[in-house]
C-alpha cells in the first residue's frame, strides 16, 4: 500500500508537470447517471466459446509433436500399397484420442463458464434516475455512469467513484485483500461536495448534471487522476476517492458510487491479462523432447530398414515368385521408407497423450477429493483447476509465498495473556476476574491491562441489529481497520471490560458493570517504524495515563529500570511465540499533569513539521543462513539488469528471502527471475488479486480459497483452503503424481519399443519387405486394449511409500523430484529393446521346426508365429509393469491379469469372425485353436516371458540389495517398523524437514538470540496490521466518530 502513497506524494510535488502531461492524454468523460457506449460489465475468463473451440483446440493439440506425427501417418496410410497395416489403423485411434481430449477440455471450460456466469449475474442495486428508485440489476448490466448502492460486505461490481457513505465525511472501509493481498482495512472517502447526498432523490437532483473526467482505463491500481465537474466548479479526484472492483466494502453500512470503469476495463481485470497463459509441465516438455528423440530413433530404424530393403532387392533379383509384385513407384526408396515409418510408427506411443490426460484428470480428482485437504470451517475442498501440472507439484524447488493471510488463517482471536508474570489462557479468563476482585498485588495490573485493551485502540463500536447478548441487549460489534485490535477489544469485552461507545473526545467503557469515561488526549499512530501505538488518556479519576502497546522489542526498550515482571513476561512471550501465536506487549505509565502539558506543546509543534514517511530497507545479506529481507523499493534497484544477477545469486544462497511492500508486477518479476536463473520449478502461493501476476508467472500457481474472495483462485492452477495443505499437496500428491507419471511415460515408451522393435527383427527375416508380424488390428489395439490398463494403474495407484510416510519424511520429496532423467529414459528404452530381442529370437527358435502339433501338421502360417509372439509380448509387458509397480491394489491385479486375459479373449473372438462376418479376419480364422492346441505355445508361456524379465528381476534384486536408495530404506523400515533404524534415518529426514519448514521452525533454532531485532519481531509476529499513512490518519478516524449518534440509512 505504501507504494501507492509514495507515488501519490510524488504526484503532488510535480503536479504541474503531471497536469501538463495529462492534458495531452485522451480522457474519459463520464456523465453521472448518463448513458455511455463503453465496454459492458460482464467478464469472461473461459478459454473457449462455441466459435473458437475447434480452431483453438486443434491448434493446442497439434502443438504436440506426437499428434502432428500421427496425423502425418494417418494421411500417408491413405496412399495405396504403402501401408503395411491398412488405411485406418492410425486415423481411428487418433480421432478417438482427440475426442477424449476434447471432452476433457469442454468439461473444464464449462466450469469456467459457470463461474463467469455466477459473477456476471450477481445482483446489485442501481439507481433509476427517472423514478429515483433503487433497482436490482445483474452485474453484467451495469454501465458506465450508473450510480450503484453497495452494502456492507458486498464486493464492488466495477471501479466506482465514491459519492457518499453511511459514515462521517463520506468515509468507508474497504478490504483490498483481493487486489493487493493486504488484510487490514483501508479507508476511502468521498469529496466534500458529494458527501451530503444521502438519498436517491438528492443524488438525482444534485448530480445528474455532473460529470467526471478521468484517465482512460489503465492497469495502475494506485493511480487515478480526474476531476468532478459540478455545475460551475471543478474538483480534483484522487485515488482515495475511488473504490475498485475486487475490493469489498467493510464496516460500513452502505456507499453510493458512480461507475467509471466496467468489466474488462476495470483496473483489476486490466491487471489480470485476459487470457491465462497455458502452462505446460516440465515433464511434458521433457516428454515432448523424448518424443522427438524417439522419432529420431524411429527414423534411424526406418532408414536402416529401407536401406536394407534396397540392398536385399539388389542382391536378390531372382526370387521369381515375387516378380511383378512391385511396380517402379512402390519400390522407390522414399516409398519404402514411408512403408517402414508406417510400420514402426507406434514406436511413438499414440495412446500416451490420452492415457496421460485421463490419468491426470483422475489424479486431479484425487486432489479434489482428499479429505485431508478439506477445510470444514470454510466447507472448501482442495481444487485442481488444471490437471496438466500435477507432476509439476512433485518437482518444486522454490516456493514463493504471499505473506499476509496466506501463512495465517487471518482469523484473529485473543488467546492468552501474561499479566504480572501470570499466564492466563482462554479458559482461565474467569480466573482473571477473580484475581482482579481479590486484594492481591496483581489485581492492579490486571485492571490496568484490561483497561488498556479497551481504551488504547482505534476500533469503532457498533450495536448489532441481529445479535443479542444473553440478557437481551443489543450486542456490540467492533469494526476497525486492524483485525488484531478488534480481537483484543473483543477479548476484553468477553472478560468484562466492554468498550461501549466512542465520541470524538472520549471513550466509554463498561468495566464489570461500571460505566467509565476516558478522555482521549493524544493518539500516537501505529507505524511500522514505531512498531507501537500509544494513547494518552485522562482517567475518570482525573489522572493522566499513557497506554502503549506494540512489538516486544520496542516496549522492552522503553520499560523503566524499576519495572517488575520483565523476565518472566519475556519467558512467557517466547513460549507464546513458540506456539505460533502473534504477540504484543502492553505497558502503562502515569504521567503528571505538568510533564504532560510540556510534552503536548512540543508535540503539537513537531506535528506541524512532520516529514514524509521513510520506507526503510533492511538488508542482512552477509548472513546466508538467515532470511534475506528486501522491500519493494530496494527490489526495484536490485532487479535492474546490472544488479539482478548478483541479487539472485545472493538471494538463492539464502534459505529464505522475504520481500516486503512489493507490487504485483514485482512479485511476478521475482518469480521470473528465479525461474530464469535457476531453471527450476517455482511455485507461487497467494490469496489476493495482487498475487495473480505471480501465480500466473510461476510454474505452478496455488491460490488460497476461502474467506477473501476468489480472485487468486481464478488464476491459480490449484486452490487449497489453507496454507498448511500445501505440504500435503506437494509432498503427497505432487510426489505421487510425479513418480506415477514418469513411470507411466517411460513404461509407455518401453512397451511400444518392446513391440515395435520386434517388427525390426521380423523385417530382417521377411526380406525387409515391411510385412507386419502381427495381424493389423491386434497391432493397433495393443495400445488401446491389451496394454492400456497397466499404464493407467501405474498412473493412479502406484506408490512406493504411503501418504503418512511421505508427510513424515519430506526428504523423500527430493528423491522423487529427480525421477525423470536421461539415464532412466535410456534404461527403459534398452530394456524394451532387450525384451524384444529375447522375445523374438526365443520364439523364433522355439517354432523353427514348424511342426508344433502331435497330429503332424506343420506351419500354421505367419500368424501362428505372430500371435504366439504377440502373446508372449503382452505377457512380458504386463508382467514388467507388475515388476515396476510398488503397490498392488486389487485394481492393479485386475489391470495386469485382466490385460493378459483380454488378449486371450480377443484372440478367441477374433478367430471366429471369419464366417460370422463377410470376409473379416480371413488371416485369423481358427488361429486360436491352432495356437492353444500346441504344447510348444504353452511351454513357451512358461519360459519366454520369464527369460526376458530375468535381467530385470536380477537388476532389481541387486540394486535393492546393494544400492539402496533412501526411498528403499524408508519403505523397508516402514515394513519392518524397527525403531533403531528409524532413529538413524530420522537424522537425515529431519535435515530436509528443517529446510522445508524453515520459516515455521525458526523458533526452535538455538541461534535465535543472536539475531537482530528485526528478526525477533519476525519470529514473534507481533500483532498489528494497520494501514499506515492512510487517506485519513488513525487518530483522525477515531476523532471523527461519535457512535452515540445514529447513522444515515441511505435510502
Amino acid at each position: 500500500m505504501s507504494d501507492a502513497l509514495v507515488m501519490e506524494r510524488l504526484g503532488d510535488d510535480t503536479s504541474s508537470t503531471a497536469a501538463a502531461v495529462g492534458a495531452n492524454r485522451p480522457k474519459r468523460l463520464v456523465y453521472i447517471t448518463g448513458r455511455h457506449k463503453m465496454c459492458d460489465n460482464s467478464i469472461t475468463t473461459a478459454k473457449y466459446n462455441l466459435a473458437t473451440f475447434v480452431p483453438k483446440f486443434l491448434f493446442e493439440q497439434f502443438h504436440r509433436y506426437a499428434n502432428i506425427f500421427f496425423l502425418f501417418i494417418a494421411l500417408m496410410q491413405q496412399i495405396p500399397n504403402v501401408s503395411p497395416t491398412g488405411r485406418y489403423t492410425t486415423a481411428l485411434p487418433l480421432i478417438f484420442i482427440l475426442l477424449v481430449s476434447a471432452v476433457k477440455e469442454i468439461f473444464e471450460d464449462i466450469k469456467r463458464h459457470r463461474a463467469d456466469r455466477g459473477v456476471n449475474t450477481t445482483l446489485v442495486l442501481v439507481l433509476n434516475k427517472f423514478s429515483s428508485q433503487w433497482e436490482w440489476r445483474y452485474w453484467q448490466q451495469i454501465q458506465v455512469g450508473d450510480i450503484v448502492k453497495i452494502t456492507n460486505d458486498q464486493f464492488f461490481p466495477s471501479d466506482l467513484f465514491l459519492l457518499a457513505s453511511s459514515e462521517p465525511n463520506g468515509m468507508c472501509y474497504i478490504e483490498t485483500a483481493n487486489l493487493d493481498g493486504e488484510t487490514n482495512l483501508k479507508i476511502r472517502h468521498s469529496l466534500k461536495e458529494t458527501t451530503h447526498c444521502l438519498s436517491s432523490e438528492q443524488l438525482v437532483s444534485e448530480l445528474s448534471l455532473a460529470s467526471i473526467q478521468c484517465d482512460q482505463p489503465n492497469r495502475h491500481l494506485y493511480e487515478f487522476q480526474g476531476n468532478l465537474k459540478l455545475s460551475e466548479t471543478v474538483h480534483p479526484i484522487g485515488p482515495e476517492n475511488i473504490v475498485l472492483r475486487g475490493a469489498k466494502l467493510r464496516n460500513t453500512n452502505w456507499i453510493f458510487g458512480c461507475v467509471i470503469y466496467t468489466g474488462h476495463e476495470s483496473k483489476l481485470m486490466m491487471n489480470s491479462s485476459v487470457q491465462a497463459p497455458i502452462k505446460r509441465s516440465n515433464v511434458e516438455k521433457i516428454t515432448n523432447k523424448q518424443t522427438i528423440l524417439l522419432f529420431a530413433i524411429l527414423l534411424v530404424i526406418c532408414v536402416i530398414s529401407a536401406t536394407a530393403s534396397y540392398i536385399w532387392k539388389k542382391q536378390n533379383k531372382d526370387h521369381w515368385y515375387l516378380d511383378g509384385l512391385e511396380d517402379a513407384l512402390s519400390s522407390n526408396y522414399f516409398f519404402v521408407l514411408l512403408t517402414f515409418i508406417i510400420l514402426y510408427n507406434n514406436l511413438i506411443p499414440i495412446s500416451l497423450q490420452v492415457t496421460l490426460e485421463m490419468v491426470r484428470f483422475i489424479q486431479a480428482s484425487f486432489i479434489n477429493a482428499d479429505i485431508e485437504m478439506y477445510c470444514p470451517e470454510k466447507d472448501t475442498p482442495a481444487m485442481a483447476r488444471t490437471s496438466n501440472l500435477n507432476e509439476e507439484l512433485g518437482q518444486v524447488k522454490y516456493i514463493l509465498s504471499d505473506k499476509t493471510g496466506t501463512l495465517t488463517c487471518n482469523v484473529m482471536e485473543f488467546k492468552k495473556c501474561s499479566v504480572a508474570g501470570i499466564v492466563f489462557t482462554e479458559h482461565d479468563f474467569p480466573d482473571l476476574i477473580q484475581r482482579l476482585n481479590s486484594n492481591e498485588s496483581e489485581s492492579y495490573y490486571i485492571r490496568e491491562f484490561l483497561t488498556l485493551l479497551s481504551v488504547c485502540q482505534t476500533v469503532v463500536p457498533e450495536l448489532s441489529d441481529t445479535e443479542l447478548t444473553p440478557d437481551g441487549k443489543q450486542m456490540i460489534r467492533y469494526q476497525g481497520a486492524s483485525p488484531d485490535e478488534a480481537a483484543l477489544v473483543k477479548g476484553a469485552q468477553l472478560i468484562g471490560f466492554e468498550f461501549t461507545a466512542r465520541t470524538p473526545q472520549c471513550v466509554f467503557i463498561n468495566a464489570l458493570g461500571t460505566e467509565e469515561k476516558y478522555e482521549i488526549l493524544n493518539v500516537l499512530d501505529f507505524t511500522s517504524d514505531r512498531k507501537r501505538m500509544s494513547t494518552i488518556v485522562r482517567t475518570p479519576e482525573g489522572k493522566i495515563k499513557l497506554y502503549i502497546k506494540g512489538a516486544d522489542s520496542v516496549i522492552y526498550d522503553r520499560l523503566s529500570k524499576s519495572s517488575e515482571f520483565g523476565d518472566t513476561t519475556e519467558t512467557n512471550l517466547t513460549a507464546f511465540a513458540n506456539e505460533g501465536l502473534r504477540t504484543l506487549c502492553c505497558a502503562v505509565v502515569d504521567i503528571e499533569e505538568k510533564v504532560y502539558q510540556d510534552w503536548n506543546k512540543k508535540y503539537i509543534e513537531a506535528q506541524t513539521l512532520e516529514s514524509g514517511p521513510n520506507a526503510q530497507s533492511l538488508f542482512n545479506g552477509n548472513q546466508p543462513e538467515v532470511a534475506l529481507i528486501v522491500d519493494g523499493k530496494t527490489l526495484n534497484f536490485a532487479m535492474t539488469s546490472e544488479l539482478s544477477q548478483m541479487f539472485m545469486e545472493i538471494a538463492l544462497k539464502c534459505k529464505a528471502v522475504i520481500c516486503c511492500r512489493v507490487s504485483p508486477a514485482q512479485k511476478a518479476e521475482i518469480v521470473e527471475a528465479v525461474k530464469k536463473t535457476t531453471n527450476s520449478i517455482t511455485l507461487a502461493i497467494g490469496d489476493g488479486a495482487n498475487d495473480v501476476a505471480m501465480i500466473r508467472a510461476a510454474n505452478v500457481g496455488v491460490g488460497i480459497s476461502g474467506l477473501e474472495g476468489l480472485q487468486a483462485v481464478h488464476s491459480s492452477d490449484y486452490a487449497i483452503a489453507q496454507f498448511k495443505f500445501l505440504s500435503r499437496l506437494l509432498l503427497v500428491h505432487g510426489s505421487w503424481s510425479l513418480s506415477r507419471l514418469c513411470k507411466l511415460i517411460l513404461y509407455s515408451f518401453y512397451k511400444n519399443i518392446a513391440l515395435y522393435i520386434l517388427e525390426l527383427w521380423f523385417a530382417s527375416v521377411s526380406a525387409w519387405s515391411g510385412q507386419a508380424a502381427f495381424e493389423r488390428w491386434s497391432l493397433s489395439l495393443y495400445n488401446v486394449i491389451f496394454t492400456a490398463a497397466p499404464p493407467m494403474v501405474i498412473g493412479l495407484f502406484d506408490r512406493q511409500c504411503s501418504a503418512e510416510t511421505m508427510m513424515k519424511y519430506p526428504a523423500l520429496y527430493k528423491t522423487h523430484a529427480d525421477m525423470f532423467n536421461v539415464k532412466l529414459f535410456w534404461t527403459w528404452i534398452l530394456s524394451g529393446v532387450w525384451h524384444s530381442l529375447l522375445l523374438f529370437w526365443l520364439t523364433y527358435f522355439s517354432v523353427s521346426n514348424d511342426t508344433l502339433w502331435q497330429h503332424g501338421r506343420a506351419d500354421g502360417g505367419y500368424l501362428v508365429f505372430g500371435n504366439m509372439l504377440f502373446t508372449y509380448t503382452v505377457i512380458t509387458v504386463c508382467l514388467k509393469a507388475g515388476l515396476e509397480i510398488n503397490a498392488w491394489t486389487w485394481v492393479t491385479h485386475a489391470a495386469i491379469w485382466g490385460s493378459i486375459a483380454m488378449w486371450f479373449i480377443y484372440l478367441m473372438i477374433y478367430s471366429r469372425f471369419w464366417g460370422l462376418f463377410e470376409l473379416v479376419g480371413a488371416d485369423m480364422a481358427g488361429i486360436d485353436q491352432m495356437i492353444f492346441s500346441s504344447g510348444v505355445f504353452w511351454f513357451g508361456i512358461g519360459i519366454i516371458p520369464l527369460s526376458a524379465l530375468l535381467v530385470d528381476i536380477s537388476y532389481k534384486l541387486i540394486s535393492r540389495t546393494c544400492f539402496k536408495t533412501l526411498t528403499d530404506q524408508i519403505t523397508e523400515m516402514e515394513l519392518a517398523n524397527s525403531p533403531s533404524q528409524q532413529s538413524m534415518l530420522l537424522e537425515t529426514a529431519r535435515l530436509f524437514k528443517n529446510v522445508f519448514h524453515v520459516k515455521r521452525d525458526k523458533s526452535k533454532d538455538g541461534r535465535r538470540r543472536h539475531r537482530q531485532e528485526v528478526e525477533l519481531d519476525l519470529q514473534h509476529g507481533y500483532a498489528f496490521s494497520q494501514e499506515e499513512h492512510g487517506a485519513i490518519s488513525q487518530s483522525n478516524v477515531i476523532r471523527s466518530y461519535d457512535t452515540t449518534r445514529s447513522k444515515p440509512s441511505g435510502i
Partner: protein
Amino acid sequence: MSSAFKQQKLPSWSPILTVGTVLPTFFLIGVAFIPIGIGLLVSSNQVQEFELNYTACKQFANGTDGPKKCSEVIANHPEIECKCRVNFTLEENFRREVYLYYGLTNFYQNHRRYVKSRDDRQLLGEIKGSTECQPFHKRDGKWIAPCGAIANSLFNDTFLVQRLTDNGFKTIPIMETGIAWATDVNAKFRNPKLPEGEKNLSKAFEGTVEPPNWQNPVWRLAGNDNDQNNGYQNERFIVWMRTAALPTFRKIFGRFRHEINEENADYHSYLPKGRYQLIVTYAFPVADFKGTKRFIISNTSWLGGKNPFIGVMYIIVGCYE
C-alpha cells in the same frame, strides 16, 4: 469402495524383491524347471526325423542317373518333366504315425507383397479374382483361378517313396488328405458350384485360366477331374496358401498310409527301417534364388516335431536360478 478409492487408501500389497524372497523363489523355479526341461528334451529326442536335401539331385532317366542336375534341366527346358532318384536308408523303425514334409529355404512366403497377393473371396467359390492379385489376376482376358502370387508359386514337386522289399522297390501309398487345417478346409476354401448334374469339376471353373506358372488347370490339382480333394479344396494347395512366417519352412506333403498296406503288417504301426528310394518329380525352381529343397520324414511327439530348443531353454533358466 469409492471412498477408499478416492482417498487413495485401497489396501495394497508391496512386493519387495529382496534376497530373502527372491532367492528361494528362484530356487523353487529352478527345481521345477530343470525336470521340465529334461522332460521336454526327452520328448524331443524321441521324435525320429530323416531329412534329405535333394536340391542338386541328378536327372533320372531311362533307369539311370544322368549327368545333369534337374535344376539345370528345368531352368533350360521348363517343359521337360525332370525326375530324380535318391536312395536313402532309415536306420531304425519310425514309430507311430509318420509324416512326409517338404522344406524350403530362402523362400520368402512372408514378403509383404506376396502375403497380400491372394483373393479370399475367390477361394470361397468365385470365378472372378480381384485386383488384389495383380499382376496375377487376369491372363488372356480370363480370370486366373486361383489368382495371385501365392497360388502362382505353388510348390509342384511330387514325391514317390519306395521301400526295398524282397520283391524289389515297392511304392508306399501316401495319403494326401488330413493334412490341412480343418478351418481352412471347412470355411475358407470352396470350389465354385458345379452346374446341375455335372460331375466334372472343369465345368465349375469354366471361364478361368490357370496361373501362368502352372502346367495344369486348377481342376486337375488332384490329378483327376473329381471334386474330391480337388480345385481350391485340394489340401496341398490349401497348405501352400497358408503362408509361412519364416523364409526357412517346412510344409506337410502327406501321411504314410499304414493302415491299408496289407502286404506288410509292419506298416500298421510304424515305418520299418531299411533301404528306400525317393523319386522326385522335380519342377519347382529354387536355384535362382539360392534356395534349397528338402524331403523330410518325421513322426511327432506330443509336442510336435523335433526341436530341443525349448527343453534346453528350461534347463538353462532352471540352472541360472
